[in-house]
């Protein structure tokens, strides 16, 4: 502003405006974040006991067979979910990216599941999958076949969670891809038409490259999200049977609120954080390394 006094007043005003948010941010996010790092280096319980152990928790995590199983489960889940989710969402986005009432209604239908909470979703799907009174079981009964124990067969639990999550998560990627598709300038398609390109060629050589960044964003966000699956595992299967569907975050929950080992749980959480960060950065680097720098 114009004068020394005016500039000083502006500075004060600046802090006054951003202050409230920053205060809450610092107290409720930054402090716990730093605390977490500290706690992970301790043996701690939920009641405030602390005992410095350095990196012992991390070492323990490396050798923990239950964690290894949970890691395996989580990775399998992510692999079962992210590629099909991206592919289906892409197909749906392409199909629904047109004017007209039917498309609008269908878009509404495919988005609708994402506003439901995880507890509602698991409730709904429990009574689809369960052999006793489930929708699928009813269908199989009508066909004269025996019911399939989706939620208690160790080989079926992970696919069951995957399908549930797919149904739940479809809306958000579709939304992102639709937004990305709509940003592609229409005249590219017109030029392609004049160049006599077939629909498949247009898709492969024009549309997909144009939404590359959006696709990357979808994959990155979904990978991060599915590596953190918690509610579905806890509520549908409890992580069982025998840990066959225990995810990492579910394990963290069990360690902290079941075994009261806060230090160990926090260490696992930090490891998971590191893994997610690395994976998403890796995905980003892999896709953008060949691109020219953005203007």
């Amino acid at each position, binding site marked *: *502003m*114009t*004068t020394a*006094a*005016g*500039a000083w007043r502006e500075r004060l005003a600046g802090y006054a405006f951003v202050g409230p948010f920053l205060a809450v941010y610092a107290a409720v996010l930054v402090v716990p974040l730093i605390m977490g790092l500290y706690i992970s280096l301790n043996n701690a319980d939920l009641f405030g006991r602390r005992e410095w152990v350095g990196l012992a928790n991390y070492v323990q995590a490396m050798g923990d067979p239950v964690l290894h199983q949970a890691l395996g489960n989580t990775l399998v889940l992510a692999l079962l979910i992210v590629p099909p989710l991206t592919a289906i969402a892409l197909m749906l986005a392409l199909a629904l990216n047109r004017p007209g009432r039917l498309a609008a209604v269908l878009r509404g239908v495919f988005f609708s599941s994402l506003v439901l909470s995880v507890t509602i979703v698991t409730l709904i799907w429990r009574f689809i999958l369960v052999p006793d009174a489930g929708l699928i079981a009813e269908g199989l009964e009508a066909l004269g076949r025996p019911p399939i124990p989706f939620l208690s067969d160790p080989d079926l639990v992970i696919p069951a969670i995957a399908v549930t999550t797919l149904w739940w998560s479809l809306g958000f990627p579709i939304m992102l891809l639709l937004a990305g598709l709509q940003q592609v300038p229409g005249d590219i398609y017109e030029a392609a038409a004049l160049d006599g390109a077939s629909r498949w060629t247009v898709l492969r050589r024009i549309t997909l490259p144009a939404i590359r960044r959006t696709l990357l964003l979808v994959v990155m966000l979904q990978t991060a999200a599915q590596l953190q699956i918690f509610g579905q595992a806890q509520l549908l299967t409890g992580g069982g049977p025998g840990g066959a569907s225990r995810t990492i975050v579910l394990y963290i929950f069990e360690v902290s609120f079941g075994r009261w080992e806060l230090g160990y749980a926090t260490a696992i959480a930090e490891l998971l954080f590191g893994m997610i960060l690395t994976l998403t950065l890796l995905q980003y680097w892999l896709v953008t390394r060949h691109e020219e720098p953005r203007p």
Partner: protein
Amino acid sequence: MSGLKLIDVSKSYGATRVLDGVSLAIAPREFIAFLGPSGSGKSTLLRIIAGLESLDAGEVRLGGARIDTLAPGARGIAMVFQHYALYPHMTVRENMAFGLVNAHVPKDEIARRIAQAAEILEITAQLDKKPAQMSGGQRQRVAIGRAIVKQPQLFLLDEPLSNLDAALRNRTRVELAQLRNRVDAALIMVTHDQAEAMTLADRIVIINDRRIQQVGTPAEVYARPANAFVARFVGSPAMAMLPATLDGAEGGRVQARLAEGTMLRTAVPTRGLEQGAAVEIGLRPEHVTLAAPGAEGLPARVELVERLGDRTFIYARLAGGPEIIAHAPGFSQVRPGDEVRLAIDAAAAHIFAADGTAHHPDARP
């Protein structure tokens, strides 16, 4: 009550100097134009006066009191922005009242001032509408009304005519002239259009290259430009500049030889000019005509012909390269590519020395 005074104002953005020791004094009810090309610093100067930019050195005084230390709203200044800056979610009435409400002016006084201004500007019917519902011309009048009701000592107008199409521009020019008569305040208008400045302002402040090049009435600035820049900037079409060498004098007036040999007997006094110096001769189109058939004249090749109806401007190039502009009455038959001869009224020529000074011909008896 004294008017606006700028005392040695300087401003830099980082390492770039934008204004360099600018000083100026304006009388209380003067209409001043800040005229200059883009990037000359004229808008910066306006914003410094308004308080929207800080200055690095110098003072700004209004009515005798120092205002550069005050907040923008406390300076007794109102501004009409180039794009009007009306508050989109408020009605016209609320737009006009906003400043007065902030200044704690009593409600009935606010209503009175708004009604008065609305009547003058013929926007009474729009008072309860929002800016989006109005045309560009109406919006500008609201912006002016918002400034009027504050009863400032000084009005600042930022490129008021640039946004407008030709028809609206003429109308607005008239309105600005009328505004000037209705308010008891000084007005400063920033423009890059020399025609606007010439028609509306009492005095023009020509700004270029971070400095004031000249301050004067339109007539002064036109007839006696202080340097080559002003000479080229003011007047349309521009003054032609021909390289020449000073070669002798007669009766106390210099003679100049053009590059291709022709000798011009000017009416410029020899004072301050050196023999043999390289200078530029300035000639306005009205002093260059087509030579009568058979008469002597400078040979030139026509490049462009501009027929305006009542006269024609002929853009030509002399042998040796320099461009020159001549005029002819009515619809001239000259065409691009023609070789013509030009008659020059040497007594009207200006001389611009290499050090930037301007030397003007003595007035004709």
